[in-house]
């Protein structure tokens, strides 16, 4: 329910909780039933209400056991019949600094204070041990928040007589216990109250009059944080983040500003915010969180942006990349299918409020921020990726997503993509270079990095001379589809010597990638080779930092090679063995 999604309006929730509960129950979801025992060190009425709301919202229907006021210890240790009958799945021990019985005083010796610490901690371990023996259940224990005042001032945290120091050490003992006991989880009230604002959190009149250990207005936040542990244990964490690119991953618009002018490094203030955000995402991905992209860019522009070495994130950090001009909700649908995850497992981050509004109608959780520091805050405080059982599988899980994505991608290419291309009604107009279009041809040869087999650069003069040498022929192609005109997007240079046709420059604009244009033009070159009586077609690939995209292009066309090194690779095919590849692009040759 939207009103319960982070960041929620706590005051609204407090006022309308009865109505919200009725609405949640009317939703009639399929629930998982869980039994939650709340052991209370202070008043818990509103706390139980909000635990219920947040659990119902994520499909968990709780039945509660609520201990008597401040009977958390007694009902485990001495009068446990009712609890034994209840048989909890989860025990939540709601204690606070108000529940600490023996605190240090200035008269205590060091030994006295150690004794008090042991005594206090043993009360808890005795309870946890007995609970584990009785039920083998999950135990969630609040840690202790900072005290309301510091008698010793700043020394209160460092001096052994300080209450702050005592609480700090008590917390440390609890953390150690948690590290050694897999079923035991700390609810970090100390951190939560600090983020909320300790003075506001502790508003003491609620303790004086109602024995609430925290501000009533903070109860929704408190319960949301607590329930996120339970959600995580019941497999309801988010699994992935889907990101926009321009002004979301980096500052700037790659298609307009150019990849080199994007800002995501510490050189500028604005760049720093994107730097920190990318590092945050990278850390999440190390915990098995799947990062994907749904951005409105030309795919090649996106990759150029990502190739900017100031990025903390690299292409391999993303499982699915959809950089195209389709609707975002459709791209998100495809990402979810590829990764075989429900849409409810994803967060969506986009600086554009219109895109957010579009995605808001899906099951994806939309992060409602405009800039990197807000993205981090909302994701962090939303507790979407609570770590409860970090296993080896979590860390390797990413690899299995990747395999799924690859399989799906293949399928998509072989079945659906083919139809998609057909629907585009692509037409390639092939012409022989005769001096016209020289500006565009030289520009394309000099600008293309990715689909460029030789990466040779020319001035116009050099190019004209080059074509005239060795009986070369240069062909170029202009592409259209039913939506519009791509312009001159492919160039291929050939020469013939001793019945061998050599393919030299072979360059294509990023705009035409994945449209089968390369196959269409190679089919035409095959025609040319046949007409000229050639026996073989030979092509060369010279690797650069940017052209890995076309590393296997000749292989995909049926060519073979004996070169295994990392330098230039020569590929060849018998003309008699060449098979036409293109089935989706209609080819028109000018003058035929």
């Amino acid at each position, binding site marked *: 329910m939207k009103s319960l999604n982070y960041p929620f309006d706590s*005051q609204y929730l*407090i*006022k*309308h*909780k*009865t*109505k919200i509960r*009725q609405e949640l129950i009317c939703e009639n979801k399929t629930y998982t039933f869980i039994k939650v025992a709340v052991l209370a060190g202070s008043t818990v*009425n*509103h706390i139980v209400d909000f635990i219920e709301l947040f659990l119902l919202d994520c499909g968990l229907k709780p039945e509660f056991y609520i201990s008597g006021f401040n009977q958390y210890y007694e009902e485990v240790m001495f009068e446990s019949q009712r609890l034994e009958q209840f048989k909890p799945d989860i025990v939540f021990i709601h204690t606070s600094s108000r529940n600490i019985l023996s605190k240090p005083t200035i008269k205590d010796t060091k030994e006295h204070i150690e004794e008090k610490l042991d005594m206090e901690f043993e009360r808890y371990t005795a309870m946890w041990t007995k609970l584990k023996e009785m039920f083998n259940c999950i135990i969630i224990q609040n840690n202790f928040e900072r005290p309301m005042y510091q008698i010793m001032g700043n020394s209160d945290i460092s001096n052994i007589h300080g209450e702050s120091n005592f609480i700090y050490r008590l917390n440390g003992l609890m953390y150690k216990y948690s590290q050694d006991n897999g079923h035991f989880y700390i609810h970090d009230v100390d951190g939560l109250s600090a983020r909320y604002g300790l003075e506001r959190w502790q508003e003491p*009149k609620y303790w*004086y*009059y*109602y024995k609430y250990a925290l501000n*009533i*207005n903070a109860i929704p936040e408190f319960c949301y944080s607590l329930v996120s542990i339970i959600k995580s244990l019941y497999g309801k964490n988010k699994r992935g983040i889907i990101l926009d690119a321009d002004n979301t991953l980096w500052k700037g618009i790659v298609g307009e500003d150019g990849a080199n002018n994007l800002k995501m490094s510490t050189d500028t203030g604005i760049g720093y915010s994107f730097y920190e955000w990318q590092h945050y995402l990278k850390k999440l991905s190390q915990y098995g969180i799947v990062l994907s992209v749904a951005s409105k860019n030309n795919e090649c522009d996106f990759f150029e942006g990502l190739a900017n070495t100031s990025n903390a994130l690299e292409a391999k950090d993303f499982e699915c990349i959809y950089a195209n001009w389709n609707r975002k909700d459709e791209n998100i649908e495809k990402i979810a299918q590829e990764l075989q995850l429900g849409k409810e497992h994803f967060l969506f981050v986009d600086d554009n409020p219109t895109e957010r509004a579009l995605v808001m109608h899906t099951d994806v959780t939309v992060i409602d921020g405009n800039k990197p520091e807000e993205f981090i805050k909302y994701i962090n405080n939303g507790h979407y990726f609570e770590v409860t059982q970090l296993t080896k599988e979590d860390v390797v899980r990413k690899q299995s997503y990747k395999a799924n994505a690859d399989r799906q991608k293949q399928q998509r290419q072989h079945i659906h993509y083919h139809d998609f291309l057909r629907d585009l009604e692509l037409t390639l107009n092939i012409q022989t270079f005769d001096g016209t279009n020289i500006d565009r041809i030289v520009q394309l040869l000099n600008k293309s990095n990715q689909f460029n087999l030789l990466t040779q650069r020319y001035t116009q003069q050099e190019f004209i001379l080059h074509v005239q040498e060795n009986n070369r022929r240069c062909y170029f192609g202009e592409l259209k589809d039913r939506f519009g005109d791509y312009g001159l997007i492919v160039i291929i240079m050939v020469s013939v010597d001793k019945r061998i046709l050599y393919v030299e420059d072979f360059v294509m604009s990023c705009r035409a990638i994945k449209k089968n244009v390369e196959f269409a033009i190679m089919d035409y070159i095959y025609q040319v080779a046949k007409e000229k009586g050639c026996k073989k077609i030979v092509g060369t690939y010279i690797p650069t930092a940017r052209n890995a995209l076309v590393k296997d292009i000749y292989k995909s066309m049926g060519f073979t090679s004996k070169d295994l090194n990392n330098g230039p690779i020569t590929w060849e095919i018998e003309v008699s063995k060449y098979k036409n590849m293109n089935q989706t692009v209609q080819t028109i040759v000018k003058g035929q």
Partner: protein
Amino acid sequence: MMNIVEKLNDIINSILETNVVINNQTKFSDLPEWDSVVQMTFLVTVENEFNISIDIGEALEAETIGEFSRCIMKE
């Protein structure tokens, strides 16, 4: 502008999910399902909506809406 009683009426109806009509003479104890927990929700919501801090001790002594109104008018 809603007057104080109207605003309190709105808060009470939201909290209890009811449609009662109250006036200055209405006693809290006569409201359906009124108990200490509801009363606390009520006090906190009044604080939030009127943007005031209530002296809870005094507020708890108010038996009627009228007495309660006088108590929050001081703030």
